[in-house]
């Protein structure tokens, strides 16, 4: 294969990565933006989404699309419910004190991971894609499902954007984000808004995982990479900036796809992580947004 088609393939793969990453990072960014909580368990919500998707899809027989649709709808709801409970039972009692919440979400990370290992097991298992079609390009065939992932991710992000900017719920969230005290004084139930945001963030991670699980397999350790990549995206994009998150996800997803085609993936990850750490040291406001303090 010549360089051109090879590059096209890398770009397509990068776009799929970017789409899923944007959804995941959006969840992390929302939680940090509104609640000022760094959710270290975010990657585990992603993993939980994928594992539940496998479980739900295995419950129904018949056409794979039925199982996939069921997973797409139910799995994020279940994960959001888990996150809601965790927020009410743990985070709210810690009064969102940054250090305590980080320690608590680390605890949550271990708990979810171990429960997944106990009940799901150490195997990696796929979910069947809802349709099995290849689009024939002149040089290679490409999975139509992967292209549809990009489309679905864009739709979901649009929906989130509408929720945030065009609905009452979104208004409450934005009011809480910009000034917690005043929001409270105006009778906004800040506690419930926080719980909702935490659940929404986790749900976004879960939905991203359900989209990707037909092409990558579900595994109990799959949460670490999306967590680190989401951190990277959120930091580069600037915290709480939706547009920044999107641009950064595209940037990271594409370069990840392209770099890992040509270099050792470990080296690529090393360099990317180092670069982002340095960005955070020398430009804590990220490339677009506001500082993370």
């Amino acid at each position, binding site marked *: 294969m010549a360089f051109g088609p090879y590059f096209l393939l890398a770009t397509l793969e990068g776009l799929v990565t970017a789409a899923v990453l944007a959804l995941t990072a959006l969840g992390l960014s929302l939680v940090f933006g509104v609640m000022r909580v760094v959710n270290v368990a975010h990657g585990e919500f992603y993993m939980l989404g994928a594992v539940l998707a496998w479980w739900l899809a295995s419950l129904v027989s018949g056409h794979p699309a039925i199982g996939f649709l069921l997973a797409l709808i139910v799995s994020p709801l279940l994960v959001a419910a888990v996150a809601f409970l965790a927020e009410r039972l743990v985070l709210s009692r*810690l009064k969102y004190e940054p250090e305590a919440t980080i*320690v608590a979400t680390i605890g949550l990370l271990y708990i979810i991971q*171990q429960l997944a290992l106990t009940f799901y097991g150490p195997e990696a298992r796929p979910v069947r894609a809802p349709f099995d079609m290849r689009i024939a390009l002149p040089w290679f065939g490409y999975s139509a499902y992967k292209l549809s992932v990009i489309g679905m991710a864009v739709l979901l992000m649009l929906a989130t954007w509408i929720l945030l900017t065009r609905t009452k719920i979104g208004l409450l969230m934005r009011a809480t984000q910009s000034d917690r005290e005043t929001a409270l004084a105006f009778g906004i139930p800040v506690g419930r808004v926080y719980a909702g945001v935490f659940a929404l963030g986790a749900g976004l991670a879960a939905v991203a995982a359900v989209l990707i699980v037909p092409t990558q397999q579900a595994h109990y350790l799959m949460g*670490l990479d999306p967590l680190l990549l989401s951190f990277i995206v959120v930091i580069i994009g600037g915290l709480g900036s939706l547009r920044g998150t999107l641009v950064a996800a595209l940037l990271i997803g594409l370069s990840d796809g392209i770099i890992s085609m040509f270099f050792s993936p470990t*080296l690529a*990850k090393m360099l990317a*992580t180092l670069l982002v*750490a340095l960005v955070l040291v020398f430009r*804590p406001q990220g490339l677009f947004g506001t500082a993370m303090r």
Partner: protein
Amino acid sequence: MTRAGARNLLLHGAVLVLLFALNFVLPEYHRGILSRVMVLAVFAMGYNLAFGYTGLLSLGHAMFFAAGLYGAGLTIYHLGWSVWPAFGAGLLAGGVVAAAIGFLALRTTGVAFMIVTLMFAQVFYLGTLYFTTYTRGEEGLILPQASRKLELPGAELILTDPAVRYMTALTLFAAVLVGIFLLVRSSFGRALVAIRENEERMRMLGYDVFANKLLAMIVSGVICAAAGAAYAVLFGYVGSGFAAIQYSILPLLWVLLGGAATTLGPLIGTLFMFYVIDIASGLTRAHLLVVGIALILVVLYFPKGIAGTIRERWLRWLQ
């Protein structure tokens, strides 16, 4: 010396005497655990200096421990160094890494500091995987038995012998405990606590906050590296697992549980957690579940830790 000082001195002396005596009464299995606990408690004490006293919540201390581990392990394995210079190489590696990381990461504060240290540690971990020709990655290196001998004037200690191993671990533990005991009573130690409590005021008073924090990071890094280097020569195994995120979280858990900013807290926390996991692993293989639940319970109901609560409720003089 004040009465509180005398009491503290007595208590710490008594703990060391007790640990010494335990060597002769403990059954083999528990003596092995305690040797390991003492080495890891040194790691926790190093972490406590940064987190407990200076208020720097680092999520990357595994890289200092691993720097010591690899500094000692690689020089023994590949260059055939003997234990003393290899231990020195471990300390040096830890000090250099801590100085470099401290210099960069201390430009940030709060949440950004945690994430930056986490990321640098992740780079270090990936590095140990990438240079797998030398480190053998996750599989790790087993240090040859013959190389694990400590030369002293007129004697040679075989570190693979359980009793010698226990005493060597205790010697290191005692040295670091005494060092920390003196350090936190010194003007430098008091300055660190003051920085934790009110950084701005210290700056106004004319203290160089950055230099003090950097020095705290370096001392903390060297102590953690000492634990890592000792772990390599005492237990003979060097692997990537010790550089993974989990080993940044564990000292945090031990210190939180035992009591941050207390000199004996790290030992108490490490010992307690070791036995909780030991007992739990008889019931379930999911020992990380125990770690997770312990983390959440501690931050929810026990934020001052064991020694911290004892100090608050009963023994106000406890250091």
